[in-house]
């Protein structure tokens, strides 16, 4: 089955970020979204460790390890940046001041539940800021491959893994489709050109509603 690359999923998610939006990108894959801001729009990126308005990574060798993001990667400052402490940082998160948070997922359920912090009782658990982000940002979106590496659906009826948050996700950008969560159901908005609804449904763990036009998910090579 044809599918979008991670870069392409990130590109698609970036198209929905308005100029001047305050955005938090989860550690790892979601960080890619910052690379694909449309021309003429400038989002302001927030990182949990007390910085608004950071830019891309510096050149190797010129890192300043007091200027990092939540993934502990070195970043740079853009004009209009601000530093603050962790309680103020999460006041921004919990207080509903972020316009968008874009996170990765192990599972997203049709009721908006998200599981992205723990794959079970084995190993060392680690949660970071995910449980705060899912209840804070005005819009919580997920970017993810549509299925696991083993081909199992990541969009499911109910999450089987430990939850990050209850009823928090409103949009999912996958390698095959763009899907909103409305009233506890998956609503299909966009799917890859040439991908049938039946084939998409077959790799989705809960029913996909079609309540209006379904647009073609067209993404350039990036």
């Amino acid at each position: 089955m044809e599918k979008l690359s991670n870069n392409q999923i990130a590109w698609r998610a970036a198209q929905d970020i308005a100029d001047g939006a305050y955005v938090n990108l989860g550690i790892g894959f979601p960080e890619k979204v910052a690379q694909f801001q449309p021309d003429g729009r400038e989002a302001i990126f927030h990182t949990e460790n007390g910085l608004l308005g950071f830019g891309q990574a510096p050149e190797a060798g010129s890192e300043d390890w007091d200027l990092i993001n939540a993934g502990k990667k070195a970043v740079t400052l853009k004009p209009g940046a601000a530093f603050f402490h962790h309680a103020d940082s999460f006041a921004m998160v919990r207080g509903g001041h972020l316009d968008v948070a874009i996170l990765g997922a192990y599972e997203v359920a049709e009721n908006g539940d998200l599981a992205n912090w723990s794959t079970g009782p084995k190993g060392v658990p680690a949660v970071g800021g995910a449980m705060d982000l899912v209840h804070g940002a005005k819009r919580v979106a997920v970017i993810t491959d549509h299925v696991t590496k083993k081909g199992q659906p990541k969009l499911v009826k109910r999450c089987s893994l430990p939850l990050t948050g209850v009823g928090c996700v409103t949009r999912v950008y996958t390698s095959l489709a763009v899907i909103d969560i409305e009233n506890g159901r998956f609503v299909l908005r966009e799917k890859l050109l040439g991908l049938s609804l039946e084939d998409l449904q077959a790799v989705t763990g809960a029913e996909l509603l079609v309540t209006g036009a379904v647009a073609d998910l067209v993404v350039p090579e990036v």
Partner: protein
Amino acid sequence: MDKTVSDLATAVAGIEDGMTVMIGGFGGSGSPIELIHALIDRYRETGHPKDLVVINNNAGNGHVGLAALIEAGMVRKLICSFPRSADPVVFTEIYLAGGIELELVPQGTLAERIRAGGAGIPAFYTPSSYGTDLAKDKPVAEFDGRMYVQERWLKADVALVKAETADTFGNLTYRMAARNFNPLMCMAAAEAIVQASRIVDAGGIDPEVVVTPGIFVQKVVEVANPLQEEDLNRANAAYPLEA
């Protein structure tokens, strides 16, 4: 992105009847007098906004600023800690005549309720006011053998704020003790409207010394030489001011 608006009238144009309005300042220090006066101008021209719920530490002094807003009849209810001042005649007369509602809140609880509103904390416990009349009908709980009062967050539709320097992204600094409630109110209002003595480009404020990050600010208007309530009152001014 540029949060600058051209003038005071534009800055306050969206404030509607019945809204909850936080107003920064502690007495006259940090009070956004020009924004308040712009709001009074609008009321005098249009009859709106009225029935406002105002949150401020005090209740105005003399006949300018917050006192003038109350005197104009625009305020239905005041939430404050200390409705006394050198010249509290406006609030006192209207309050004793039953013309305005008062919710009295201990000052630290007021500050924390506003911060909680901005920080997404719907309720918290404080020892302040436990066992007093101001805790009547509030839930209480014991933690580690001591009694505490449960307090709820305070949010607002709009905050009127006075800053010293703003950049176009809304990052703010304040001037000395004029900081007081202003940074908290930026956090707790859906729309923080800021008058700043000067507006600079993004990058014009050192990221280390920003007090209010721009994410908490929606509109900024420049008022280059703001009036001080104390000076106006010493000159026995009343709003509208004589030219």
